[in-house]
């Protein structure tokens, strides 16, 4: 099915809503059109990992305060910045990446993508890393840091059962990522060892509804080709559970591409345009578009404001990725201040 088909899915969903009562539940976009039957069958359990929670979580904010303190601590420094201290561990864990499909992942803290690290420019980052996995691992951060904190060289691999503490200043502001840098790289990356690393400018960015989206893929049969594509791991998750946003409120998407095996990935948002800040290192927008393409390891901050209420599809504009799970929807609802 081509993208015209995807478009008609949305048209179908919208059409349905027009003819039925307004109180209808947000449509399950994959099944709402009788003529099309694309997408995965069934639902993934969110007991271990909930992509909706992940969207708006950073620095372990999804945990209750007591538990959060075990993984994340803030200490003010004399210059007014913060020392942000994180406890990360690598662990092998089986993840349900599409309904009924279980992937033997390597994870940071039991989830893929890893918990998001977020700091302000000039903060000090300290990550205590314990490797509880079955293979050597490391954490390689994108951003300024001295070479001994790089985690890429053979001498910097953390063997199973061992620890290492990464410490560096959070620079420059922008959207970065971290990932394991142990060889074989492709395997250590696509098995799930990656996460988003946000550094806010000192003055901050305008207030917005902020969402973290990591475009990833899973090679479930290990033939160097992905069987499942997704944003935030679970195929078609946001097609079943739309991302709820408010009409008229600024939405900021922190978009990271860690897809392995495919050269590029992309995000296309229906019925909308957005500003693109490549790598987020400048406050001046690079582009105003509805489709952005990112290479492996590349990332961008996208900003937009929903103008109309209703459901908006978003997906990779590589139709193949979209049809293999990288497709979801936003549900824009009228906000309290909307006119």
């Amino acid at each position, binding site marked *: 099915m081509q993208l015209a088909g995807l478009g008609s899915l949305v048209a179908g969903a919208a059409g349905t809503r027009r003819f039925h009562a307004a109180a209808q539940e947000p449509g399950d976009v994959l099944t709402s059109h009788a003529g099309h039957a*694309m997408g995965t069958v069934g639902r993934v359990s969110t007991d271990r990992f909930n992509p909706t929670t992940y969207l708006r979580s950073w620095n372990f904010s999804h945990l209750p305060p007591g538990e959060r303190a075990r993984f994340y601590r803030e200490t003010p420094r004399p210059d007014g910045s913060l020392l942000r201290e994180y406890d990360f561990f690598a662990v092998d864990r089986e993840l349900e990446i*599409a*309904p*009924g*499909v279980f992937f033997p992942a390597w994870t940071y803290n039991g989830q893929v993508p890893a918990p998001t690290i977020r700091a302000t420019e000039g903060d000090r980052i300290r990550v205590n890393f314990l490797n509880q996995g079955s293979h050597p691992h490391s954490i390689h951060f994108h951003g300024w840091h001295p070479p001994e904190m790089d985690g890429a060289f053979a001498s910097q691999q953390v063997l199973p059962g061992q620890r290492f503490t990464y410490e560096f200043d959070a620079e420059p502001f922008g959207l970065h990522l971290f990932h394991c840098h142990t060889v074989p790289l492709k395997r250590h990356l696509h098995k799930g060892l990656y996460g988003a690393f946000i550094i806010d400018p000192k003055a901050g960015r305008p207030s917005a509804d902020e969402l973290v989206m990591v475009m990833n893929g899973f090679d*479930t049969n290990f033939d160097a080709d992905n*069987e*499942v594509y997704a944003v935030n791991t679970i*195929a078609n998750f946001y097609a079943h559970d739309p991302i709820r946003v408010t009409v008229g409120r600024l939405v900021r998407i922190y978009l990271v591409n860690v897809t392995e095996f495919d050269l590029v990935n992309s995000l296309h948002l229906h019925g909308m345009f957005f500003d693109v800040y490549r790598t987020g290192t400048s406050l001046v927008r690079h582009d105003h578009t509805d489709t952005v393409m990112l290479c492996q390891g590349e990332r961008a901050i996208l900003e937009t404001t929903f103008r109309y209420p209703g459901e908006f599809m978003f997906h990779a504009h590589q139709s193949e990725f979209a049809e*293999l799970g990288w497709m979801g929807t936003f549900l824009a609802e009228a906000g309290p201040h909307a006119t």
Partner: protein
Amino acid sequence: MPRSAASAVAAADGRRAYHAWLLALLPVLLLAALIAVIVRTGPTASLRPAGVPPVERLSILRVELTPEGFVATVLNDGPDPVSIAQVQVDEAYWRFTADPGTELRHLQRATLRIPYPWVEGEAHKVKLVTSTGTTFEREIPVAVATPRPGVRYFGVFALIGLYVGVIPVAIGLLWFPLVSRLGRSGIDFLLALTIGLLLFLMVDAVAEGLELSGALPGSFQGTSLFVFAAAAAYLALAALGASLGRRRSAAGSGVVLALLIAVGIGLHNFGEGLAIGAAFALGQTILGNLLVIGFALHNTTEGLAIVAPLARADGESPPAPVSLGTLVRLGLIGGAPTIAGAWLGGFVYSPIWALVFLAVGVGAIAQVVVQILGQMTREEPLGRYLTSRPVAAGLLAGFIVMYATGLLIG
């Protein structure tokens, strides 16, 4: 011997028989105990560390194309249970329903209904993703609607069977008057030609059978099934031939031989019909007309093979007169199975049955060849007979005719 002594001996015999039975049962009981122990303790589990995925093997046996989409028949061919988690069509996840379910035990089947808008004449690929992420796929090389059993397709397949099976064989039979006027070396040439034709068919069927057995799910042990089904068919036909020979000795061995050849060729044509029907069902009959012409030419020679032994003088006496009714019967036995095969192949094609029928055809043909050779060489050593000029020429001509007409089938 006193009566009591005799009964004592009988009792002793009875006891001995009882003991013998007990002893025969003991290994069976021990075997059952051994299996129970293996099942209970699972000694191989220690070789399979935790986290190693199960051995998963799925075979997509058949994909039907309906206006609503695909209907795939899936078999769990591996030792461990398999759970079908998702279905991809042409690299897109697609909705599906599974009957009776997605969890398949060893050798269990499921029918998957996938409402995919397939495109006529184009290729598609169905891929199953299991719970461990392992994938199994099957290609649909040319998408055409699978024929449904109905008056129209029954008619079409009957017509094709008629064209490639019944009519060509009947045409071949029409050479009978000519054949019956031939002299000794002419008959030898013709019988040798028949053997050449049959051997060619046999080699062809063996090659096809081995290819098919390779494609069959491993659990069905295709190669062994093929070889032993062929052997069984050979033995069954040999027994049939012997009993027919006894009953119909008055009718002359030529008629019996012709009947056996007709049965052998009929079984072979049944397999051929299966292949044609299946090719049609699988959308491979875009080049259908050439295929039908090729089979028609090919099979005309089979009619000749049936009549050749009728013309052979039986011992010292001249060949017995053959009635038109006998010829028609022989023609139907040889040709009509093509129609039945085409129906079966088109509507309920199963690679396992196709393999069995191919094997039966091979066994039947082998038996016929042995039978003809036996009758031809009654008084001569086989080697000298085969190298005599008319026989060698006939064999060669048989191979060449089959090869040339086979080129058309491709």
